C-alpha cells in the first residue's frame, strides 16, 4: 500500500529471486563439466584439443595450481561476469578463442561501493555452487575478502601465480600494479587498468592568463592565491567527491590517515603530510579556488564548464571529463597532463583512483581457459583498443599511451607519455588500498556536509578519524591513532 510496503519486501524477494536464478542458471552451466568429466575426460584427451597451461590433471583435486580444484575439463564452458564496459572485450575473446566456450553475464560491478560482487559471491558461497569462472570488479580492494576463506568456503579468487598463468606473463605488469591483489606473496587477480593521479591543466587558459603549470603542492596553493585575486570564478579542482578529496588529494599528499600493516590499522592525523594537505584544502576552499560540487553532478557542468584551470585527478579523467561533451568537454590541444603534484623537496608519491581487476575462480572446472582469458583481456591484441583508461599491463599501457600521444588531443603530446608513466610508477604505497573498508564514506558522511554548512575540514578531524576507527574495529583490526 505504502511505498515501503511495496518496495522493501519486493526488494528482498528480488534479491532472493535473483540469487535463486543465478544459482539455478550457473548450476546448470557448472554442472556440465562435473557430470561430463567422468566420461568426457578420456575423450577430451583423445580429441587432442591444444590447450595452453598445465592441464591434464583431470580428476585430481589438488596440486597443479597450488590449491584444491574440482575435476578439470579443458572443454568446459566458462562463465564470465562483466559490466557493460567490459562486455566488448569478452565478446572479442569469444571470437578469437573458439576453443574456450564462453558464457557472458553482465552485472553491476561498478566501483563506488555497490559491493554487488561480494554480495553475489557470498550468496553462492552459502549455496555451495554456481560461481562464475571469471569475474570483473571495478573496485580495488576485493582481494581483502576474495583471497580469503569466507564462512568456511574456499577463497573465491584463485591464486594465479602457481600455474593458472605463467609467472613470466605476470612479470610484464607495471611495477606495483598487482600490490592490491597480492596476499601472502601470491597474486589473486589480473589488473585491468591503473588510475594514477596527475595534474590536468587547461593549456588555453594557462596561456591566456600567463601562468605556469605547478609541479608542487606549494606552487599549486600559491597559484590558487593568484587565481583568487586575479581571476576569481576560475577553479583549480573539486573536493566535492570523496574520490577527489581523499583518493586524489590526501593520498597524493602521502597523508598516512588510512594505512595498514598486517592486522593493524593506523590513522595518523598529526603527521605533517596530513596537516599540510588539510590546511591547503581549507585555504583553497576558503578562497574559492576549490569547489564542493561533485564532478558528476548537474552543478559541476553548469557552473564550471570552461572555468576549470587545472584539476588533480586520475587518468580516467581523459574519457570521463575532457573527451566527454556532457562533462567539461574540450578541444584538441586544450587539455594537457602535468606532473603529479608533490611536496617541495620530496619525491612524487601520487594517488590512485580505481582501476579494476579480473578474478579467476578457484571453483572453476576449466582453469586453463580461465588463464587464457585473463591474459587475453589485459594484454591481448584487442586490449589496447578496448580497455578504458590506462592499461595496467606494461606493454598494453605503452601502446595505449602511444595512441593517446598520436591522437593529437593532448596539449603536451611530447611529454604526455612520460608524465603518465611517471605517475603510474610512483603511486604512494603507504595508502591502505587493500583494506576491506573504504576510505571514502567518512569524508562523504562527515566532512562534506560540514563543508557545505560553512565549517572547515580541520574542525572535523576527530570525527573523521573516529569514523575510520569504527570501521576498522568492526572489521577486526587493531587500531593505532595519532
Amino acid at each position, binding site marked *: 500500500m*505504502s511505498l*515501503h510496503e511495496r518496495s522493501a519486501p519486493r526488494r528482498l524477494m528480488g534479491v532472493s529471486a535473483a540469487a535463486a536464478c543465478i544459482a539455478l542458471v550457473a548450476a546448470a552451466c557448472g554442472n556440465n563439466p562435473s557430470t561430463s568429466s567422468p566420461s568426457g575426460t578420456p575423450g577430451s584427451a583423445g580429441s587432442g584439443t591444444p590447450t595452453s597451461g598445465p592441464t591434464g590433471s583431470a580428476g585430481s583435486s589438488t596440486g597443479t595450481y597450488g590449491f584444491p580444484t574440482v575435476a578439470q575439463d579443458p572443454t568446459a564452458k566458462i562463465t564470465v561476469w562483466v559490466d557493460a564496459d567490459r562486455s566488448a572485450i569478452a565478446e572479442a575473446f569469444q571470437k578469437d578463442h573458439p576453443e574456450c566456450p564462453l558464457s557472458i553475464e553482465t552485472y553491476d560491478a561498478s566501483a563506488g561501493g555497490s559491493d554487488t560482487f561480494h*554480495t553475489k559471491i557470498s550468496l553462492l558461497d552459502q549455496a555451495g555452487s554456481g560461481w562464475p569462472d571469471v569475474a570483473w570488479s571495478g573496485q580495488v580492494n576485493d582481494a581483502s575478502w576474495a583471497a580469503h576463506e569466507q564462512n568456511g568456503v574456499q577463497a573465491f579468487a584463485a591464486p594465479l601465480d602457481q600455474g593458472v598463468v605463467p609467472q613470466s606473463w605476470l612479470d610484464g605488469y607495471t611495477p606495483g600494479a598487482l600490490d592490491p591483489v597480492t596476499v601472502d606473496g601470491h597474486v589473486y587477480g589480473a589488473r585491468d587498468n591503473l588510475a594514477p593521479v596527475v595534474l590536468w591543466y587547461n593549456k588555453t587558459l594557462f596561456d591566456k592568463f600567463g601562468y605556469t603549470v605547478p609541479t608542487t603542492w606549494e606552487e599549486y596553493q600559491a597559484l590558487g592565491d593568484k587565481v583568487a585575486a586575479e581571476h576569481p570564478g576560475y577553479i583549480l579542482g573539486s573536493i566535492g567527491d570523496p574520490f577527489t578529496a581523499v583518493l586524489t588529494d590526501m593520498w597524493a599528499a602521502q597523508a598516512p590517515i588510512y594505512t595498514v600493516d598486517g592486522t593493524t590499522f593506523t590513522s595518523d592525523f598529526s603527521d605533517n603530510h596530513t596537516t599540510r594537505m588539510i590546511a591547503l584544502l581549507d585555504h583553497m576552499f576558503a578562497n574559492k579556488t576549490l569547489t564542493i560540487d561533485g564532478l558528476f553532478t548537474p552543478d559541476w557542468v553548469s557552473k564550471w564548464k570552461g572555468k576549470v584551470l587545472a584539476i588533480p585527478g586520475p587518468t580516467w579523467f581523459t574519457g570521463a571529463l575532457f573527451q566527454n561533451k556532457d562533462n567539461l568537454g574540450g578541444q584538441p590541444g586544450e587539455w594537457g597532463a602535468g606532473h603529479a603534484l608533490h611536496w617541495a623537496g620530496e619525491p612524487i608519491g601520487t594517488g590512485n583512483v580505481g582501476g579494476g581487476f579480473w578474478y579467476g575462480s578457484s571453483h572453476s572446472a576449466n582453469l586453463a581457459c580461465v588463464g587464457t582469458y585473463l591474459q587475453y583481456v589485459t594484454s591481448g591484441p584487442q586490449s589496447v583498443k578496448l580497455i578504458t583508461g590506462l592499461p595496467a599491463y606494461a606493454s598494453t599501457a605503452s601502446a595505449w599511451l602511444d595512441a593517446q600521444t598520436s591522437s593529437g588531443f593532448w596539449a603536451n603530446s611530447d611529454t604526455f607519455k612520460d608524465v603518465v608513466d611517471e605517475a603510474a610508477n610512483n603511486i604512494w604505497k603507504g595508502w591502505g588500498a587493500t583494506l576491506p*573498508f573504504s576510505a571514502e*564514506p567518512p569524508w562523504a558522511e562527515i566532512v562534506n556536509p560540514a563543508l557545505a554548512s560553512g565549517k572547515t575540514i580541520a574542525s572535523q578531524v576527530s570525527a573523521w578519524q573516529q569514523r575510520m576507527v569504527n570501521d576498522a574495529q568492526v572489521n577486526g583490526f587493531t587500531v593505532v591513532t595519532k
Partner: protein
Amino acid sequence: MPTAAPTKKRQWAPLRLRRRPRTGANAQAFAAYVFSSGYVLLLLVFGVLPMVYALYLSFTKSGQFVGLDNYVKAVGDFRFLPAVQHVAAFLVIWVVTLTVLATLLALIVHAMRVRWLSSTARFLFFIPGAFAGAASVMLWLFLLNPSVSPVSFVLKWFGYTNFVQAIDLNNLPLIFTVIAFWTGAGAWIIIMYAALHNISNEIMEAARCDGASAIKTAWYIQLPLIRKWIAYMVVISVAVGTQLFAEPKILAQASRNQIPKHYSLNQLAYVTAFGPQADFNSSAAISMMLLVVAAGLAAFFVFRGGLFDRD
C-alpha cells in the same frame, strides 16, 4: 435473564437444519482453503521458512550453538544504535502523520457534498501511489536538489542552497515521511473513505437530527466506528516502516555516500551479511530483533485497536 432464552433457541435451530447448511458450509470452507492455500504456501516458503533459518543462524556460528554471541556482537556494533534511532525517528513521524492526515483527509473527502469534487480529490490522492517505491525516490532526488528542482524556491526558504544541505542526516526522517506519505497515503485515504462509507446512513442521519456538528459527528461517531481500520493502517505502516531500506539505499548511492550505507536497521543487516564482514549470523540476529520489535508493536495495536474483535 432475558437473553438466555433466545440464545438457547438459536442453538437449537442449526441442529435441526444440520444436513443441508453443512454441505453448503463445507463447500464454502473448501473454497476458502483453496483460495488461501496459495498464500499460505508462499508464506511458508518465503516467509516462515527463512524466518526459521534466520533464527537458527542467529544462535549459531559455523553450525555451532553460541547462545547470544551474535546478538551481543550486533548490538555492540557502532552502527547499531544510530540505525535504531534513525528507524525509530522515521517510524514515529511517519505513523503519526499518516494516521492523523490520512484519516482527516478521508473525513473531509467524505464530507464533500459535491460529487465530482469528491471523486477528483480521491483520484488526485491516489495518483502518486502508481509510482513504484524506487521510482518515486528517483523523482524526489530531483525535487530535493536545489539546482534542478522545480520547487527550489521552497528549499531556499528553508535555507538549503545545495543538495548536500537538503539531505542532511537530521532531515531524513522527515524526507522519508514526505516521500512515503506522498506515494502511500492516497491508498489509505481511499480505504478510510470506504470505511466511512460503510457507516450506516441511519446513524449519520440520527446524528444530524440531533444537531451534531461535523466535528462532533467525526469525533463521536465516525472515528469510533472506523477504529479497526485505523488500527489496521497503523499495524501495516509500522511493519512497513521498520523495514525501511530502498529509499535510504538509493539516496546513499545518489548522494555519493553522504547517507551511510547502514542508515536503517534493514540496511545494517544487509551490509553486515554482504559487506566486508560477511557475517550472516550477526545479520540474522539484527533481523530477528527487528522482527520481534515489529511483531510486538503490531500485537499492541492489534489488541488496542480491537482488530480481532467480532462485532
